[in-house]
């Protein structure tokens, strides 16, 4: 049973929300009417989500949402307010509220919003669970099938320093992300000779880019087969190379795997972001 904390200064509104939520199988673990008790009650009750009124006397719902988000960045706050226009929605999104329900509360609308919030969360968890395996399988497939050699792949720590050649593939879908394949120049050249089977001359970069594109595309289709709502697609690869290259990955939690091959080491880093909640 999901636990709810209700933040609203009006006893009448709190009682209506409590009724709707309890009738539909939620447990109301707390009711807060002023900001002074907000964080203490949030911590004590540890709710799965919060319903948040906007117009309140001491601090408004946006400020209270900020207090909660500062305390718990993963908190899920659904705004519940009689005002609903573009500027209010913009403010709600700015404080990272995950949904908006207009007062007077319609039970169906509230339930749909809750379902949307948790459905999205659950699908993201599913992606997080599978993506490392998906990319490992795709990298292995790529090496084994395209070069007819063997490889040993392991998860490793991320290194910001590039080995020399970094291919970036943006990923788009229900969640956006990106993959980076990194290797040194020698590995890139050896790999492309094996893939192209003839003199590669100045085509090394294009060939490794195409290899990356195939690996990333294959990984996305492996993951899309797990859950078609991921709907992952790949942006064209871009190659960055140079002796002193650094890769930075803020805004994203990523995982790194490393393949030992007869051409050298190939490092793959991939991650996804939950992205903006598309609610209106």
């Amino acid at each position, binding site marked *: 049973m999901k636990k709810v904390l209700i933040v609203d200064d009006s006893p009448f509104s709190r009682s209506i929300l409590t009724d709707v939520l309890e009738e539909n199988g939620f447990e109301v673990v707390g009711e807060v009417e002023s900001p002074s008790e907000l964080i203490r009650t949030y911590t004590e009750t540890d709710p799965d989500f919060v319903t948040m009124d906007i117009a309140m006397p001491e601090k408004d719902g946006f400020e209270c949402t900020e207090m909660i988000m500062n305390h718990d960045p993963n908190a899920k706050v659904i705004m519940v307010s009689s005002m609903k226009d573009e500027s209010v929605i913009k403010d709600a999104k700015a404080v990272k509220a995950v949904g908006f329900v207009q007062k007077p509360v319609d039970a169906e609308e509230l339930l749909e919003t809750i379902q949307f919030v948790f459905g999205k969360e659950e699908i993201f968890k599913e992606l997080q669970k599978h993506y490392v395996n998906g990319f490992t399988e795709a990298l292995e497939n790529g090496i084994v099938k395209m070069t007819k050699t063997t490889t040993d792949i392991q998860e490793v720590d991320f290194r910001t320093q590039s080995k020399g050649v970094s291919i*970036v593939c*943006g*990923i788009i879908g229900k969640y956006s992300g990106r993959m980076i394949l990194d290797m040194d120049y020698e590995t890139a050249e050896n790999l492309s000779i094996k893939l192209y089977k003839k003199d590669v001359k100045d085509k090394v970069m294009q060939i490794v880019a195409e290899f990356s594109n195939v690996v990333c595309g294959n990984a996305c289709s492996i993951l899309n087969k797990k859950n078609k709502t991921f709907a992952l697609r790949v942006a*064209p690869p871009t190659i960055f190379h140079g002796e002193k*290259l650094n*890769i*930075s*990955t803020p*805004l994203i939690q990523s995982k790194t795997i490393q393949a030992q091959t007869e051409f050298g080491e190939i490092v793959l880093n991939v991650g996804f972001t939950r992205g903006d909640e598309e609610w209106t």
Partner: protein
Amino acid sequence: MDVKIINPFIEAFNNVLPQLGFAKVSKGAMTVKSSDLQGNGVMAIVGLVGDVKGNVIYSMNFDNAKGIASKMMMGMPVENFDDMAQSAISELSNMLTGNASINLSELGTTVDISTPTLIYGEGLKVKAKASKVLCVEIIADDAKLDLNIAFE
């Protein structure tokens, strides 16, 4: 590639940069380059897939990257291109491309954008998957950066 496609991206600078505290945003020279780019400093890359497919690369030297990051952090001094500064420039590329995608959708072109990737260093060489890359210099107060658009 239609040169008009660049306008939603330039508009994004006009929409986003003033919100970050820049007073004056203007467009400098526009050039068409081959798919090979070079640079010293910072490049933030965002992929696009939808009615058009490609990548946008925002490039700038370290001084400009630090200056822009500082402005984004309310004038906090930025001595090194550290984690905070990297995060600021990534976020900037995300905001600009996100805004550009909204501008594109108003013109009837729908695209989704990927998470940005930040690459930095000396002697950066880039090969984009596009026959031509459109490059526009953007001047925001005393900072300069290049907007590179590489569509398939």
